[in-house]
């Protein structure tokens, strides 16, 4: 079984886990509504997110034109640094199969990962169950390229901006939908003719998943 198949299988497992957690959370919410505990909104120290990533590269560049990208994973952790300010770390990973080796080079597939340091701002007061957060961040992008059993990397600087919509179901759990765009500035040494292809890439990477609250 190849890596892509394994990755796909792990997504299925994650989907089952997601449904189980969601079901548990909804049950818990019903219990809490019966025993109201006002004020818990203000006790959140931080929050975490884990979700499905559905990346889509666009523009005229080697990822958009040369890869068939697969779904991935989005993981975030944030701490409340003020009433509405959130500071955090974010990790995104997905895999892409090379469809145009003439453009990209003779690579079978690549794992594409992003690591960001981020700052977010809650657009709504944090006493609401429904939240909207705007986040920006910077960090690194890495392509782990596979050619048969050999690997080599391409790296670069990355920036992101996102808008996250979330709904809190109970004390510790909610769900979110994130709309994010990543801009990657690759450090690949290349002929100037390939600057437009290998210089920058843009990836729209929305994600949906669970949000955990640390009280």
């Amino acid at each position, binding site marked *: 079984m190849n890596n892509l198949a394994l990755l796909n299988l792990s997504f299925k497992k994650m989907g089952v886990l997601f449904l189980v957690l969601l079901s548990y959370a909804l049950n818990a919410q019903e219990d809490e509504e019966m025993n109201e505990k006002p004020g818990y909104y203000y006790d959140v120290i931080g929050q975490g997110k884990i979700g499905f990533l559905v990346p889509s590269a666009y523009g005229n560049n080697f990822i958009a034109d040369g890869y068939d990208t697969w779904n991935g994973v989005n993981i975030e952790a944030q701490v409340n640094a003020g009433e509405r300010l959130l500071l955090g770390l974010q990790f995104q990973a997905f895999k892409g199969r090379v469809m145009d080796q003439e453009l990209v080079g003779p690579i079978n597939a690549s794992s594409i990962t992003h690591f960001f340091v981020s700052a977010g701002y809650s657009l709504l007061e944090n006493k609401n169950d429904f939240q909207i957060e705007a986040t920006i961040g910077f960090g690194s992008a890495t392509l782990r390229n596979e050619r048969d059993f*050999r690997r080599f990397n391409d790296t670069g600087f990355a920036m992101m901006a996102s808008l996250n919509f979330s709904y809190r179901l109970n004390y510790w759990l909610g769900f979110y939908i994130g709309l994010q765009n990543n801009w990657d500035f690759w450090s690949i040494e290349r002929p100037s003719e390939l600057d437009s292809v290998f210089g920058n890439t843009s990836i729209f990477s929305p994600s949906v998943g669970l949000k955990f609250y640390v009280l």
Partner: protein
Amino acid sequence: MKKVLFCLFVLILLAFKCEEEIQFQDNQRLLLKARLVNSEGNLFENIPVEVFASREYYFQLNDQIRNDFDEIIGSGSSNENGDISITALKPRNASNIYALFNFKGSQAFQSEFAPLIVNFINDKELRNNTYDLGTVVLDKVQPFELIALRKTNQTDTLQYSWRYNRGVKIEGSNPIDNYYFFDNDVRESGFNELLPTDILKENTFNVIESDTIIFDYQLINNGVIASEQLQIIVNEQSGSFEFEF
């Protein structure tokens, strides 16, 4: 203890294996550029090109051996202007980077033109991460007639043989100074003789238009009385060479 020794053995094997294989450099891409024309200056469209990196100094003509030892680092084909622009990975430990033009086995292979190998591209100047091969000429494969004709000598037997490149052109190399010419994958040869009762013998075979045919003959009459090696430059003949004696 046995497990430790076994692990060490595997690690050593892996280390040797890794050393043999071509490795690629991080954060590097190369560009290989060329313009493909025929000997009359006409441009070629859709000619397949593969670029290989090898740990050896000499490439392998045998496809299977080549795939075992050499690594493809880029591929593409010429556009409507005959231009080739191939993005390639940059090998870390290659002794030879070479390109195959119009190679056999490809769907776009054009059998009327000889496959061409450009060797030691890594010895050329790398400017702006680009190897520019300039104009590359693909040679036509054409029929060639070799004629032995008895005119004045009515007593001796003529034995003659010829050798030529089977159909692969190696840029900058003629059979006479070509290392690969000694390889049976490249070389083709023939033999014939003219007995005193024979007047004429003809042989026709396909040659590369820019090639050289090596022609060896000897005259025999109770032993060898004369022998010589001739170099027949195909371009200087008009599709045939006549040996008269």
